[in-house]
């Protein structure tokens, strides 16, 4: 049985992330991780006529970069598992149309990257596919106008607000040995802490991250020392402190091992409020920066916990709260 405990899969066969591709926008290209991404656009429109088409370009290009780096032809992809933040998953749908892969669309808000990755790993492990391509994307302008306000509207945002990361990321999952092996994955529950402030997603998502992390360690009977890094997706400055405190109360002293992609992606003087968010946040930081750290041998293994606020402007207007989810994937470095 590959199901270990209640919500966790342990992959006994060697499942690898063969290659990754990351493409980011201008703000990310000026941040502290600017040299960690494959490609950077200097223009938020990415040479496209609208934000949505720009996001599509980012996902498409991330896939192209990934396949190019892996030296794998499009025809070698068995399934494409992808999702994004936009209504009806339009970015992933249209990219799938263009690429012509058999496609499984997934939505987990900003947790989509790890949801796609764990489904990909299961397909490979179960011998349902030889190569699965996973991808996700988000765009500041497209997200801002769908979930909040027009990008040029004058509003004063609180310091708890997040800045949606503009980027696309792809990861190719297969049994081809690479430096990155997928060890285990935990699918999260939808948790609602009762937050209803769309300009404070970190607070809304922290309990979901904590629940998934706690369950992961419980299912595998491990403690926090099992990983060099425990990384959450986009809790930001506010949510990550709450998560750390809650983990401490659960008996998990994560301390210096704990990181948050939303905190890592921007400089504090970049006016990004509490930090980065969006599907691409966890994706580009993990597949770009953290994988580079693994290649350099600085990180042996890590638990990536992508966090997603399942936030709908319609539901908020109907006085509903913001439910959240987090999916975790454990990745270990393989020395060759």
């Amino acid at each position: 049985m590959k199901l270990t405990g209640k919500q966790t899969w342990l992959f006994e066969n060697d499942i690898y992330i063969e290659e990754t591709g990351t493409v980011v926008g201008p703000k990310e290209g000026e941040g502290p991780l600017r040299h960690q991404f494959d490609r950077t656009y200097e223009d938020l429109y990415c040479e496209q006529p609208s934000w949505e088409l720009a996001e599509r370009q980012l996902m498409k290009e991330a896939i192209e970069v990934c396949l190019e780096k892996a030296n794998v032809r499009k025809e070698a992809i068995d399934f494409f598992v992808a999702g994004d933040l936009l209504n009806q998953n339009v970015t992933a749908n249209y990219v799938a149309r263009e690429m012509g892969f058999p496609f499984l669309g997934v939505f987990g808000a900003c947790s989509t990257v790890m949801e796609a990755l764990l489904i990909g790993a299961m397909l490979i492990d179960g011998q349902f596919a030889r190569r699965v391509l996973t991808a996700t994307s988000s765009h500041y302008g497209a997200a801002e106008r769908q979930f909040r306000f027009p990008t040029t509207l004058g509003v004063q945002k609180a310091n708890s607000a997040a800045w949606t990361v503009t980027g696309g990321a792809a990861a190719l999952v297969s049994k081809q040995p690479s430096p990155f092996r997928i060890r285990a994955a935990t699918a999260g529950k939808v948790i609602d802490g009762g937050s209803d402030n769309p300009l404070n997603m970190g607070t809304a998502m922290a309990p979901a991250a904590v629940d998934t992390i706690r369950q992961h360690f419980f299912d595998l009977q491990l403690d926090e020392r099992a990983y060099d890094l425990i990384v959450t997706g986009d809790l930001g400055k506010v949510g990550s402190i709450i998560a750390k405190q809650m983990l401490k109360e659960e008996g998990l002293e994560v301390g210096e091992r704990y990181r948050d992609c939303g905190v890592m992606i921007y400089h504090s003087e970049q006016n990004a409020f509490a930090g980065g968010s969006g599907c691409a946040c966890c994706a580009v930081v993990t597949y770009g920066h953290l994988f580079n750290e693994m290649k350099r041998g600085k990180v042996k293994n890590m638990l990536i916990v992508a966090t997603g606020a399942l936030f709908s402007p319609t539901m908020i207007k109907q006085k509903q709260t913001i439910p959240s989810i987090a999916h975790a994937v454990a990745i270990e470095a393989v020395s060759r």
Partner: protein
Amino acid sequence: MQKKTYESIAQPFQPSVPYVMNAMKAFIVGGLICLFAQLLMDAYRFFFSMEGEQAVRWVNGTLMVAAALFTPSGFYRKMTQFSGAGALVPMTSLANIWTSSALEYRKEGLSEHVFHVGGSIVVTAVVATYIASLFL
């Protein structure tokens, strides 16, 4: 998860709102906009020999056009982020709301989206004017 308990856990970690600083920034920026408007009014009176009422209307118009022109570059948004209520002076903000909506949704049809954000302002204004008219 219980709403009350999580709220009590999360509350101490929320960033504090710099009310005093915000009020000062709003006062200074709002004041500067008013000062500019006054200078503009004096200039209109002096150079174009406009009467009081007429000069006021022209100043309002100029400020709204200026706010609309400063919208596409994101300058107006940045100014509002800095000064809060200081730049949310009704006239200029209204121009910003409509311009930003028109710009943002132009690909899906400009006319139907101009009031995407500012629609409630129009409704409030019409209703308030009607009620006020009953007493005048």
